[in-house]
């Protein structure tokens, strides 16, 4: 029990530390790498909560796919012009104000409902939670699942359409 508590709190501490470094790191690549660590930590938290399959998905999709794309783009493409455009000026100032407002909103909304978080959670889910997830996904949430397939198709078409546009920062190719 003691070991579990130590494990959980050290995991939580590192998770918050990595998330903090993601925001404050000046080098965008360091920031992205801290975000990778945050994602892996989140997968561990999911696993700890009993959502085993979601933890695996978090590892494969976020840590293994989305962040690989981020890191690849930041490391290997010359984004100096974009970095400059997004770190100074009116546009990024607006972004900063908006995100500060969002954070404040989340903070107040969260502090309002945080008493419910302190309640003891329901009994730990049974071992075969992935199977239950599958059964629910393909019965109760079937329409959402099929709609997601269509949405992914739209995104795929959009990616190809956007990458065909000549001009902008990639005009020199």
């Amino acid at each position: 029990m003691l070991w579990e508590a130590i494990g959980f709190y050290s995991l939580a501490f590192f998770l918050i530390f990595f998330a903090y470094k993601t925001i404050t790191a000046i080098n965008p690549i360091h920031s992205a790498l801290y975000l990778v660590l945050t994602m892996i930590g989140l997968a561990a938290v999911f696993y700890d909560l009993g959502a085993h399959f979601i933890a695996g998905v978090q590892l494969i999709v976020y840590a293994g796919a989305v962040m690989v794309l981020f890191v690849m783009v930041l490391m290997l493409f010359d984004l100096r012009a974009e970095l400059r455009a997004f770190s100074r000026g009116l546009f990024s100032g607006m972004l900063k104000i908006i995100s500060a407002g969002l954070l404040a909103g989340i903070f107040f909304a969260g502090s309002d409902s945080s008493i419910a978080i302190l309640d003891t959670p329901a009994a730990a889910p049974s071992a075969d939670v992935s199977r239950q997830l599958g059964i629910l996904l393909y019965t109760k949430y079937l329409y959402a699942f099929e709609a997601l397939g269509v949405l992914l198709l739209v995104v795929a078409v959009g990616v190809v359409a956007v990458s065909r546009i000549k001009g902008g920062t990639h005009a020199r190719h």
Partner: protein
Amino acid sequence: MGADVFEITVNFVKMVAIFLLMVQIVPLLVWVERRGSAYIQNRFGPNRVGPLGLTQLLADAVKFLTKEDFVPGRGYPFIYYAAPIVAMIPAALALNAIPLSSPVHVEAFEMLGQTWGPYVFLAQGYEFGIGVVFVLGVSSLAAYALLLAGYGSNNKYSMYGALRASAQTISYELAMGLSIVGVILLFNTFNFTEMIAQQAGPLVFSLFGHKVEALSFLPNWGIFYQPLGAIILFAAMFAEANRLPFDLPEAEGELVAGYHTEYSGFKFNMFFIGEYGHMFVASLLMVIFYFGGYTLPGVNPETVGKWFADFSPTKASLLTALVLHGVLMAKVVFFLWIFIWVRWTLPRFRYDQLMDLGWRTMLPWALANTILTAIFILIARHPWGS
């Protein structure tokens, strides 16, 4: 991890032993690769140092250790040093999640004036309910080592090598993930031990509610249900491990040495440990998915236990585990040899051919495999009579 000190210690030692097994297999495989390539190309290979050139490995290790610790002047030292260490982590984590033998049951015993046990020790570092998904997730983190190496060296060739490597690994991850869907359809579980248990015994399956026993001289291996999936998975594994004919990231004619251009000595060797670790995990997955894991063809796992009935239960269980581990390793070694065999037989792909093969050939075939498997299972397992 365990309930008391003894269990925790044994489990930790077990994990470290599996990791060291992965590290130790590298010099052996390098030796097999050199001798094997020499055999294939009708040469001698290393045969001067020690019997069959085996101590050449020790000389190599000394050479690796005594090389100068070099950091490129324009690189980023921390990331440059972190990359080889990161390269070892995914393979080590994936290897520890795969069962290497049957569990060992230890009876209660007395030690230091205290009664310990009884224990059950799995022949793997840790068991997750989501075995396959965990291995896939951890393996997908392998791209970071390449990206870190490319960025940390701050070299044009390293960067292009890292870019190619990551684009290639993610492209083949699709075909790999899809061919594993067929395996999960077949066994209806994510758990490796359950998969192996389902492959024990002779090949008997049901069709339209009838039991077909005509092929019962064959073992009940996954390869007989998933031949196409097995081929796709094995081909995708080559690309995942960056082995020839998919070793475009280190195509020396174009990119010097790819992402490890600036690496030398033991740092270079650690990338090798990661690569061979991936090969090892890939061979293990092939054996567990399609070739019955640690089961012997024609022999029930219980029969193996009866061979050692004269010993005490603890010893019998340990001996059974050792025999089954030997069976598993024999199968794995065969696949490792295929990895080496292919490397010295096939030429390298061109980059556009490589991406073409991954996206436009293997992905559709893997899809076809999934759909066909689903249709066959629907027909075969549907409760027709009731």
